[in-house]
């Protein structure tokens, strides 16, 4: 196995044992980026000099017999909406390129650095996180390492493609309507969207206060669980990967969450359900309406956030973003008030289901990764716009802030992701289910090409 193919915990084991230095691990990843990122377009800013200094510090600690940290020598990178000291936090935009650079890193970067991880840079995304494809008008599209003609998904497209391509062993992203789960599914990596509010949003550029979540991506469940535990603050929330899963309390979400899904996505769902022993199906009522409510609140809060720049600099927005922000900001108040009331009602429906079940399963997307620029895809026999509809199965879940692990189901073709959804605060159980699936060999998060 090559160094850039190692998981984060695999790198830590090698570095701590002295088989490779953190600097050697870093050099292998930098060489990989320099060889392939011209194709995949993951990085929008590289911090290689900083990374070399951080790796040297890890190596010095090891040589001095000091504790190098649980992520010793792990190369990581972050979606470009995280504050990195000295770099403007562009959030995928042209508008913020002249913003004053932050004087400190986001706390997530600080924590991973303190654990021994090494920051390689900032990663491409949809402008202001308002999209599912990372076809950014300013920075270009991020391409899927499994097939560069296809999208990596979004809005955290650079974060997932950088992992799948072996540029990093760990990345961070954000999820407002699916931007962790959807791209993870399309590129065959693990993604965790924790419960709403569980991981701080400090030091990140906001999109929709009501729904924004921060979370990690990785190529193994152990890596994902370790990163999550470093980012969250509650002792009782720490993951225990060996905890038991009761098959009778695992169910597939039907109705909205299977409508129009392609045969390969439904097969992936059943592979996960079978491996967990979950034979039941359950309906989360009014999920279609929940998706609509999420859509309205997203456009409204996003539009209101950007109102000053929508007035002053409309021509500097991505043409795919501008009309949606303007239309969203101009919505009548009654829509938003009713959408927020509906949100409370829908949450109650989900909590009632969690009295009977611990884990709910749903595909991450209705289809595998579409082509770059693909205008429509077929959903239940009807051609629907790709950008607006590929997040159908993720939007109702982030709407009510449930924790989800998106797992990559082994596939002969393009990657397929399945969401493992838990009750609020039960990230540990979703991670334990992912670990069980990984043990059973039904998942695959490999470095390509």
């Amino acid at each position, binding site marked *: 196995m090559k160094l850039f193919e190692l998981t984060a915990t695999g790198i830590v084991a090698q570095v701590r044992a002295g088989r490779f230095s953190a600097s050697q691990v870093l050099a292998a990843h930098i060489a990989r980026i320099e060889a392939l990122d011209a194709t995949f377009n993951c990085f929008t800013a590289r911090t290689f000099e900083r990374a070399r200094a951080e790796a040297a510090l890890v190596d010095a600690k090891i040589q001095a017999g000091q504790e190098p940290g649980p992520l010793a020598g792990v190369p990581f990178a972050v979606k470009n909406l995280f504050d990195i000291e000295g770099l403007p936090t562009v959030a995928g935009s042209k508008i913020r390129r002249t913003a004053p650079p932050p004087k400190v890193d986001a706390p997530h970067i600080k924590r991973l650095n303190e654990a021994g991880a090494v920051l390689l840079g900032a990663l491409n995304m949809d402008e202001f996180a308002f999209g599912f494809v990372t076809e950014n008008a300013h920075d270009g599209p991020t391409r899927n390492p499994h097939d560069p003609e296809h999208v990596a998904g979004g809005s955290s497209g650079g974060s997932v493609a950088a992992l799948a391509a072996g540029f990093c062993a760990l990345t961070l992203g954000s999820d407002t309507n699916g931007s962790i789960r959807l791209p993870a599914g399309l590129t065959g990596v693990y993604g965790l969207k924790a419960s709403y509010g569980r991981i701080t949003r400090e030091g990140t550029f906001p999109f929709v206060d*009501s729904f924004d979540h921060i979370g990690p991506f990785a190529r193994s469940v152990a890596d994902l669980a370790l990163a999550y535990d470093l980012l969250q603050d509650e002792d009782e929330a720490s993951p225990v990967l060996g905890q038991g899963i009761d098959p009778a309390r695992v169910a597939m979400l039907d109705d909205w969450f299977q409508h129009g899904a392609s045969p390969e996505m439904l097969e992936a769902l059943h592979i996960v359900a079978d491996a967990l022993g979950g034979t039941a199906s359950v309906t989360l009522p*009014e999920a*279609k*309406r929940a*998706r*609509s*409510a999420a*859509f*309205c609140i997203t*456009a409204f809060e996003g539009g209101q956030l950007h*109102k000053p720049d*929508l*007035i002053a600099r*409309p*021509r500097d927005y991505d*043409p795919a973003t*501008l*009309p*949606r922000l*303007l*239309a*969203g*900001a*101009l*919505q*009548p108040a*009654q*829509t938003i*008030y*009713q*959408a*927020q*009331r*509906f*949100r*409370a*009602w829908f*949450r109650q429906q989900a909590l009632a289901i969690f009295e009977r079940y611990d884990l709910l399963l749903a595909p991450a997307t209705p289809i595998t990764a579409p082509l770059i620029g693909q205008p429509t895809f077929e959903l239940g026999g009807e051609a629907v716009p790709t950008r*607006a509809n590929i997040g159908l199965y993720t939007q109702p879940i982030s709407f009510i802030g449930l924790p989800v692990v998106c797992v990559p189901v082994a596939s002969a073709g393009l990657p397929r992701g399945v969401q493992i959804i838990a009750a609020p605060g039960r990230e540990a159980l979703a991670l334990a289910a992912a670990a069980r699936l990984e043990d059973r060999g039904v998942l695959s998060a490999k470095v390509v090409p």
Partner: protein
Amino acid sequence: MDQETQAAYLAAAEKLLGLPIRPEHKEAVQTAFAVVCKHAELVTSFKLPPETEAAPRYIP
């Protein structure tokens, strides 16, 4: 809301809210607003129990 009503609403709202839409963006914004209206109709047509409070709550 039909297309004509949507256009009239947008014309009034952009003035009322001080958020002007430039001529070259009008068509794209009207298209995006039509999509928003479809979703909004689904949301506002749902009968909620009167005791249902809006999700974000102010905590003093």
